[in-house]
């Protein structure tokens, strides 16, 4: 009978907290959006599922060994833990707090106590450590994205890089928005938090995760969910802004056929980009370095089997672990917070501003050059969100003029946006990292 009670008291129903229940529902909602509404399913299916698993009561899948030990809070374990952390109190909350702020040596000592008491890291915690805390997973995804990227349209029309630059204004405007909210006492974001939130406006998943894991790991879950959700919402967020800022005539502008790009130019471009990064912004080197490496593997033509693996088996494996790891950060105490609301609002503002700046920049460039070379609809593609944003440009172009295929032209600013937000990420890591 004791055993029956024990089973019951260890069950999920008995231990379910309101926050956990809510987060499980959030996880189910993410799965619904991913599966039924096609919101970036490759990421949101693993993230949603990981979020549900992370919130299973008593399973502790997203907890470290020490966190699991503190959760069960056996007196003798708390005593040993307090001693390892140099605390007098054995109150679980204080122990946990001390653990999170501990020096590396005290951290090790606490881990030793937890292991001696038979507690282990949860599965998702291990995945997070290996995939995200090490920085490896976002970088490998970026390598795979590089191996999938064709810089041809950008090389055919390099000035579209300016569109990719302009659209990054969304990032920095959002940073300013976040610090303003803090100033007004509405939210409580540090400058690191603000920078990590801003990067949502970069519309680039791995960059957002990489920056958030370095600057604001506690906001990682919300930031990743916002970034991928808004990328999926690009076809809804962008068109009204694009229509509002352009005239019918502008939307009808046809662009000249792109010139053919030689193999050698495509090989040289990632090398050139890497050298520029090396000379100007070493802090962007991991992100852009891996991106260029993937692209060079694609274009050089002599390592097709590596390029193929980077685009398929490797990126798929990493995506599974990355998604589950992000999901492990969807804990109630961090996600069910007014900050998440702030992040969601700031995120959509960032997307909007980025879109608007891209379009305005295109119009400005036309005026500067005194011509009509650029259809301003391709400016919005500068936020990245490859290839969704370019498709949106194309769709609006076709609406205005059924012969006006903008897809290839929009791919230029689209990939420029990837470079632009990686550069922005480097600057932020440099200044507030």
């Amino acid at each position, binding site marked *: 009978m004791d055993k029956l009670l024990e089973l019951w008291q260890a069950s999920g129903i008995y231990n379910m907290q309101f926050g956990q229940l809510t987060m499980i529902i959030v996880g189910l909602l993410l799965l619904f959006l991913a599966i039924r509404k096609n919101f970036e399913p490759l990421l949101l299916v693993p993230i949603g599922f990981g979020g549900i698993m992370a919130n299973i009561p008593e399973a502790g899948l997203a907890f470290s060994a020490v966190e699991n030990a503190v959760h069960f809070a056996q007196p003798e374990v708390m005593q040993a833990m307090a001693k390892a952390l140099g605390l007098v109190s054995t109150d679980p909350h204080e122990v946990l707090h001390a653990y999170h702020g501990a020096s590396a040596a005290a951290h090790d000592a606490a881990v030793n106590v937890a292991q001696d008491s038979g507690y282990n890291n949860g599965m998702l915690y291990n995945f997070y450590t290996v995939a995200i805390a090490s920085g490896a997973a976002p970088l490998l995804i970026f390598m795979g994205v590089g191996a999938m990227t064709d810089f041809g349209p950008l090389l055919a029309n*390099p000035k579209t890089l*300016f569109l990719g630059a302009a659209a990054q204004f969304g990032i920095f405007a959002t*940073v300013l928005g976040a610090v303003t909210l*803090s100033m007004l006492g509405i939210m409580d974001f540090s400058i690191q938090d603000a920078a990590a939130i801003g990067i949502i406006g970069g519309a680039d998943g791995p960059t957002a995760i990489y920056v958030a894991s370095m600057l604001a790991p506690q906001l990682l879950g919300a930031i990743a969910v916002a970034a991928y959700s808004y990328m999926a919402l690009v076809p809804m967020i962008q068109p009204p802004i694009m229509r509002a800022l352009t005239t019918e005539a502008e939307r009808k502008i046809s662009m000249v056929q792109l010139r053919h790009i*030689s193999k050698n130019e495509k090989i040289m471009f990632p090398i*050139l*980009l890497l050298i520029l990064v090396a000379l100007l912004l070493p802090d962007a080197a991991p992100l852009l370095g891996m991106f260029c490496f993937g692209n060079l593997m694609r274009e050089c033509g002599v390592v097709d089997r590596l390029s193929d693996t980077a685009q398929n088996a490797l990126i798929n494996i990493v995506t599974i672990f990355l998604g589950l790891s992000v999901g492990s950060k969807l804990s109630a105490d961090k996600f069910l917070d007014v900050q998440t609301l702030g992040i969601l609002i700031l995120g959509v503002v960032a997307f909007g501003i980025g879109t608007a700046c891209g379009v305005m920049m295109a119009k400005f460039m036309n005026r500067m050059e005194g011509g009509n070379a650029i259809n301003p609809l391709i400016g919005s593609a500068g936020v990245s969100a490859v290839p969704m944003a370019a498709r949106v440009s194309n769709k609006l172009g076709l609406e205005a003029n059924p012969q006006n295929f903008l897809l290839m032209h929009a791919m230029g600013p689209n990939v420029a946006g990837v470079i632009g937000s990686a550069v922005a990420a480097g600057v*932020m890591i440099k200044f507030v990292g």
Partner: protein
Amino acid sequence: MQNLLSEGLTLMVFGMGFVFVFLTLLVFTTRGMSALVTKYAPDAAPAAAPKPAAKPAVAPAGNNDELIAVMTAAVHKFRS
């Protein structure tokens, strides 16, 4: 607090400035590179030579897809 705002402003000014400087430089160096490559190293011969020498230990996905596409087309024709 004032401090936080000024940090945010600085980040915006320098961040945005740097992004523009960097991408502007990229525009110019890319144009230069394209010009140089087109002049001194056009594709033609050099690109053709190394390709066959590379040992395609595994049929790369791309080729495979192409092949399959070609064959599907052929099969469709064949059926009709």
